């Protein structure tokens, strides 16, 4: 530190403090920041604040964390711990970020009981763990080849395509003194569709949560563009937590970020919250959406039906897997399910892992 000129020291310290708070900051951003502060004078402390916002590319939802670090470095105030999931009636969108995970990891370490209760819950499955693992293995093996595809806007050379490849044809013609020897063609590429997994983790779904998360993990591992969210009283994006290849580790991380496993249901509000974030709603656009829920809604069903309607119009297809389906006499007769059924592409069995795996592998087939 001593090699730095004195006025620059706090700037570098600020960048480091931001890194400590979970912001990814590259050295050339620090250099840019210092140059920017120099450019602005700095006339007053707010200039430094603005320069940091711009050069460190602080997204709006992390403004609070940034301000706290700024205050602690430049104004000597202590950093308030980030408030996680303040109890409010409003439904919150919970997207774990670097800074938050830090605190959550601590919680996790101190809570050894978690694993025991997870094992206990597993005991309720009808399948033995061995059978379930076999299903997951087969699922992971078959998934890459069975993902639904869509036509991309990019083209590639193809022997019998649907469009003339002028570029290649004429390039070859140029080599043959301007004579067109062969017509080259292109066709559109095929790309895997996005898959969006919405998992209801409320109390009534408690039995299956663990299983579904294992399936979701296999899906995130095997599919190029899968996103997983859990719904209950809160909406939580768990895709990043499911990224590690090691299943046990990923499931631990996932259960640490899902703040309200087995909590109450506010399915409609959670789905509305999902649709209200443009970035999330964009995941659903043109995607194969799979909802795993029994559709039991505590509150008024209006918001739930409206949200599913909108979701079904954004999505390429919407499949609803309910654990109640296992009962051969099951009919979607609750008010919510009766209203939702016509909006779904297919209503399916969400009672055990084999049925769900089967359904997902069948998504590419016509509805």
């Amino acid at each position, binding site marked *: 530190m001593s090699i730095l000129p004195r006025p620059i020291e706090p700037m570098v310290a600020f960048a480091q403090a931001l890194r400590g708070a979970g912001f990814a900051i590259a050295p050339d951003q620090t250099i*840019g920041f210092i140059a920017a502060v120099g450019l*602005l004078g700095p006339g007053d402390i707010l200039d430094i604040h603005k*320069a940091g916002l711009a050069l460190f590319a602080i997204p709006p939802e992390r403004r609070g964390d940034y301000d706290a670090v700024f205050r602690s470095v430049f104004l000597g105030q202590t950093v308030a711990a980030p408030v996680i999931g303040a109890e409010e009636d409003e439904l919150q969108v919970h997207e774990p970020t670097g800074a938050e995970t830090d605190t959550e990891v601590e919680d996790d370490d101190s809570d050894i009981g978690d694993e025991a209760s997870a094992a206990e819950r597993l005991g309720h499955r009808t399948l033995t763990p061995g059978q379930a693992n076999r299903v997951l293995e087969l699922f992971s093996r078959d998934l890459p080849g069975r993902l639904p595809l869509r036509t991309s806007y990019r083209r590639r050379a193809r022997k019998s395509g649907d469009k003339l490849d002028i570029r290649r044809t004429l390039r070859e013609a140029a080599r043959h003194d301007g004579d067109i020897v062969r017509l080259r063609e292109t066709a559109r590429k095929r790309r895997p569709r996005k898959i969006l997994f919405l998992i209801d983790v409320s109390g009534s779904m408690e039995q299956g949560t663990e299983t579904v998360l294992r399936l979701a993990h296999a899906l995130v591992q095997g599919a190029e563009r899968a996103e997983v969210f859990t719904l209950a009283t809160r909406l939580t994006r768990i895709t990043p937590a499911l990224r590690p290849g090691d299943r046990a580790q990923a499931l631990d991380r996932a259960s640490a970020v899902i703040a309200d496993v087995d909590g109450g249901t506010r399915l409609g509000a959670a789905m509305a919250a999902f649709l209200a974030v*443009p970035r999330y709603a964009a995941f659903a656009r043109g995607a194969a959406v799979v909802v795993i829920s029994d559709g039991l809604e505590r509150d008024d069903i209006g918001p739930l039906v409206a949200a599913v309607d909108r979701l079904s119009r954004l999505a390429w297809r919407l499949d609803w897997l309910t654990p109640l389906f296992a009962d051969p006499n099951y009919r979607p007769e609750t008010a919510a399910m009766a209203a939702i059924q016509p909006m779904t592409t297919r209503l399916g069995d969400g009672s055990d892992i084999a049925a769900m795996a089967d359904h997902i592998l069948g998504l590419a087939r016509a509805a």
Partner: protein
Amino acid sequence: MPVTPNIAGIDSPVALQQALVAAQYLADDALSTAAYLALALGKPLLLEGAPGVGKTEAAKAVGGVLGRTVLRLQCYEGIDASGALYEWNYPRQLLALRRAEDASIDLYDDRFLLARPMLEALRNPSGTLLLIDEIDRADHEFEAFLLEFLSDYTISIPEIGTMRAETHPVVVLTSNRTRDLHEALRRRCVYHWIDYPDATLEARIVMARASSVAETTAQAVVASVTQLRAEPLAKPPGVAETVEWAEAATLLNAQGLRWPEAFRQSIGVALKDHDDLTFLQDRLEALLPGEAA
């Protein structure tokens, strides 16, 4: 890092802000600071925000202030080098080849090169502003491709070689944030999140852009739009919608419709989603702009 504190007579964020106001774009402190820093540091400016907050307008205004031509590159999924960078004019090459017969001819001459916005900006870095619009619509492949361009402002064309900009071109990127941009791209840019303007500023924007609108109407519309944005709508009205709603209602009013009715009749200008209208149906009366003029 080359720093140019004075660009076309603009030597501070305040100077830029004043110039933008003169060009009919009302920018707040944070935006003019970020834009000034981007210009002075020779970095691209990345503007993010909800649709309709005026990101593209901001870029055009900066171009106007600097006296530069704005080259707009609209992004879409599947956009690639032939749409963004350059393409050879194959029919012309072929004709020239036929006509030349035995004479030798350079097929990769400049006259056969069709420059797309990025190449054009590179060829004339001091006279243009490159606007890469809605980068979130492009796919990751294009983002990676862009990264190379933005880090050292060079383009390589296999048939010609590498072209380098003499000076740093001014580049503005906009994103509606329908997806997260790659960290590496954000890192290279000066970033600004454009929020909806506060009520006073938005009323001033309405007045500046729609000359026919009375001040009281502008204020009433802005108050109503602010309320609408607090509702969980699929498509909250942007600044452009505010301006158009004020204009539309004023027009209907001039043709004899009474006030609240003029707003109700023109609601389609502000709310463009059937679900939103149904959702607000019962309460719409209370949300409409009240007394105006």
